[in-house]
């Protein structure tokens, strides 16, 4: 199967333009707060740069080593329980903000990843393994255990409902 080339698009140019205008107006109104917001954004960018690098590398490796059919086998229509499990595990171990993963998921989706599995991935991301000790410290281990359990069940149910909704609308 020949891979379909997507035309190049300067994605998000309008969003960036609006944000720049926001900052411009904000600087005129309250330069100190605007500067603080800009510093926070810069800190965030530096912090998540390694995650972007990992995502870009992972996407490149995936495209190089895996054929669209293989991706569809693991995450597509016929993936069955294995697909759900992959999405759940990937969501739990994924690090960084949600938007850092958009490009990889978009790529996987174009290769046949089911929408339900994307929902499972996003929903299960609420469990942050490195942060679990902090949650236990703040809210107790029973709360942490219960919350994690319901998050996992809820993630699967959300994915399942989305697939039903999409099937009905087709």
């Amino acid at each position, binding site marked *: 199967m020949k891979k379909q080339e997507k035309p190049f698009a300067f994605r998000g140019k309008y969003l960036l333009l609006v944000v720049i205008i926001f900052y411009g107006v904000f600087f005129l109104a309250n330069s100190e707060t605007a500067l603080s917001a800009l510093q926070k954004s810069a800190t965030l960018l530096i912090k998540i740069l390694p995650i*972007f690098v990992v995502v870009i590398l992972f996407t490149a490796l995936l495209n190089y080593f895996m054929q669209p059919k293989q991706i569809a086998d693991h995450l597509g229509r016929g993936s069955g329980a294995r697909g759900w499990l992959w999405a759940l595990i990937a969501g739990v171990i994924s690090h960084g903000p949600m938007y850092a993963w958009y490009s990889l998921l978009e790529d996987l989706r174009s290769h046949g990843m089911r929408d339900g599995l994307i929902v499972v991935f996003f929903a299960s*991301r609420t469990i942050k393994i490195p942060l679990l000790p*902090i949650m236990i410290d703040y809210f107790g281990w029973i709360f942490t255990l219960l919350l994690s359990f319901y998050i996992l069940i*809820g993630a699967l149910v959300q994915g399942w409902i989305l697939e039903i909704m999409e099937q009905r609308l087709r």
Partner: protein
Amino acid sequence: MAPLLLGVIGLVGLFQVLVTPKMLASLFLGNFLVDTLIGTLAGAVASGNPIVSYLLAGELQEQGISLYAVSAFILSWVTLGFVHLPAEIEVFGGRFVLYRNILAFVFTMIIAILTTLSLQVLS
């Protein structure tokens, strides 16, 4: 995709400065159902590292905000994000994003309520 991500990061910085913990705490009313809804909305509006949501949630709980609202706040902080919506729509399409966010919103409230109720039963 770089402009898209820079746009979102710029918005996150703005929200982190404009939405303060004090502002969040003042939103809650004391009714568990309404507070769960407010917790979900507050978590969706606020953004940043999840560790910040735990610290804020701890502060909120110390101020007497119910565990229903606090749980909803922690959950929606990660799964919902008004700031990310423009980028999410551009990447995944409006219909998918609408469905995903409605599901995430409803399930945030359900999970928060179930967790707190289960905790009450167990303790």
